[in-house]
């Protein structure tokens, strides 16, 4: 059994089922990120772990103790909210110790715990101020302090960085990661930002429509997405998904795709077992960074295919150059070095790293497992 078990858990509001048989198990010290678009059920799941929402069926266990029906304050968990939810009429110090006070901890111990946490988060000088006098980043820290001081088994974060501006968001993201590394706490973190998911987590649960689309490490999610949703949701710019037909040439499967002028090109697959799909339509998935110019192509790859196509638009983005072209009737983006010699309207020879290519079944939208 894991440290935190979400066992076949379902949530319904009346007759509407919003979470379908979610099954996740994580070990102590893991950083689990629940990521997905708005309405996918990630916040609902987090609230169920917290005990703020009831579980319709299934079990949630922490350290093998069943938590169904247990009051939130008795689960030994702490939560950091999106709006920080600091008590406006109390000072920062009182905010931090309120939970301890409610649990009957004596004053000297409360004081000590508060000082320790304040030192850790570098908010000692704020202890006598009220939340209304703090900046967004400071409030964030106080909210984390309030959670830390309880020394809980599991930390829950509900989109804590959404209300911060971009620069602060990046700084705080690093802070959270550092805290996790130094304290080794178990964290469940909800966000809609896939970059946060990839950078912070030890494991990601990608959710959509109340289902866990895939549960895995960041690397697994990124390199081996199990369906088109996960493939296109994670990674920015999104993975290119292009209609193609499998053709077998001398026993080796290839993807036949349509270029901008209607002519066809073939890209050889690395996986031999796709031969079973000969003549069938598939969806070819290939990330922008796998399509470059020949000079920048990955030297360690054993399968770089050439593709000649016309450039539609070039977008210099500082550190990279994004080039778009038409494949299979769709806009496809390639990523190159910023000093690549490209122009709009130019016919260019692209290098496609087919080791990273993924084939999806167009009907089920699932990755073709081999």
């Amino acid at each position: 059994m894991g440290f935190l078990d979400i066992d076949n858990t379902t949530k319904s509001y009346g007759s509407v089922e919003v979470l379908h048989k979610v099954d996740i198990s994580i070990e102590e010290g893991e950083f689990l990120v629940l990521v997905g678009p708005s309405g996918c059920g990630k916040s609902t799941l987090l609230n169920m772990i917290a005990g703020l929402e009831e579980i319709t069926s299934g079990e949630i266990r922490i350290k093998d103790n069943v938590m169904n029906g247990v009051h939130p304050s008795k689960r030994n968990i702490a939560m950091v909210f999106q709006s920080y939810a600091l008590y406006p009429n109390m000072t920062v110090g009182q905010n931090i110790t309120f939970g301890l006070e409610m649990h009957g901890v004596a004053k000297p111990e409360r004081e000590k715990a508060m000082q320790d946490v304040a030192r850790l988060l570098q908010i000692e000088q704020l202890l006598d101020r009220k939340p209304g006098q703090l900046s967004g980043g400071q409030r964030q820290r106080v909210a984390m302090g309030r959670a830390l001081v309880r020394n809980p088994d599991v930390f829950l974060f509900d989109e804590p960085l959404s209300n911060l501006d971009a620069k602060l968001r990046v700084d705080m993201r690093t802070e959270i990661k550092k805290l996790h590394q130094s304290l080794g706490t178990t964290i469940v973190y909800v966000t809609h930002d896939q970059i946060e998911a990839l950078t912070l987590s030890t494991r990601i649960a990608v959710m959509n429509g109340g289902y866990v689309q895939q549960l895995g490490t960041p690397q697994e999610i990124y390199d081996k997405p199990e369906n088109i949703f996960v493939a296109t949701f994670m990674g920015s710019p999104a993975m290119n998904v292009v209609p193609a037909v499998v053709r077998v040439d001398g026993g080796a499967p290839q993807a036949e795709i349509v270029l901008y002028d209607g002519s066809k090109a073939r890209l050889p697959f690395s996986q031999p077992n796709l031969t079973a799909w000969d003549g069938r339509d598939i969806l070819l998935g290939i990330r922008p960074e796998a399509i470059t110019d020949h000079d920048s192509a990955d030297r360690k790859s054993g399968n770089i295919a050439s593709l000649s196509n016309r450039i539609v638009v070039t977008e210099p983005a500082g550190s990279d150059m994004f080039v778009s072209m038409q494949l299979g009737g769709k806009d496809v983006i390639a990523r190159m070095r910023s000093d690549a010699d490209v122009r709009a309207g130019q016919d260019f020879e692209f290098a496609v790293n087919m080791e990273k290519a993924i084939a999806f079944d167009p009907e089920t939208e699932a990755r073709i497992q081999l």
Partner: protein
Amino acid sequence: MAHSADADFKTRLQAWIPKLVLSPSVAMMLVFVYGFILFSVYLSFTDSRLLPSYGWVGFENYSKLWRLSHWEISLKNMGIFAALYISICTAIGLGLAIFLDQKIRGEGLLRPIYLYPMALSFIVTGTAWKWFLDPGIGLENVMHTWGWESFRFNWIKDRDFAIYTVVIAAVWQTSGFVMAMFLAGLRGIDNEILKAAQMDGASNWNLYRRIIIPQLRPAFLSAFVILSHLAIKTFDLVIALTGGGPGRATELPATFMYSYTFSRNQMGIGAASATIMLMTIAAIMIPYLYSELREKR
């Protein structure tokens, strides 16, 4: 040349129009409110009786006023009435608001029921309660016919208790309004704060005492200001309910002023009592308005 002169004239005219539009109201206010206030205050220093007269008598009216037992009784009644009215309205208003905020089915029906008395004239309220509290045909009589022979409820005719009947009727009229204010305040509290407090282990009691009610401070303040202002102005209700009686038992400064000015032909003293009323309200309203307007800037 002529064109730009026209344009100048037009823009200058446009700059004046707003002030022009505002001026009738400002003029009315300056004359009918502040001018009249000055006039009445001035009158309080004169020997006016039936009609305004302008013989200066200094503070004589005021010293006469404070020596009148009638005035003393009015003030005492005002104190009792205001204290009870404000505290009971606040308590009921807060209580009902908290209860209604618990996801009650039928809130849409209950809320209008609590509020509708505010739509009534104090005269109507006074009339209804006057007969309801009348021992002959009202509650006492009803209890008797229902079998409870020894029930007594003749407060409205009792010198010592009549003022409490005014409290009852006034609370009935305005507690719904106080409830609406607190309900709005409660609904403005961030829901995530409540969730955080639950996770911290706060019982409902602690939740309300330590977190929710402190955040209602603006609503408390507004309620206090409005209720005290209504209390000082209470006139219609007393006239309809008890007429000031029995005897002087329910006289309030407002009724005192009216009777001394118009029935007893003691305009100077009446003006003095009105001035006192004004100063009391000003002492409460001016700091409040000042702080509210400073924020609005």
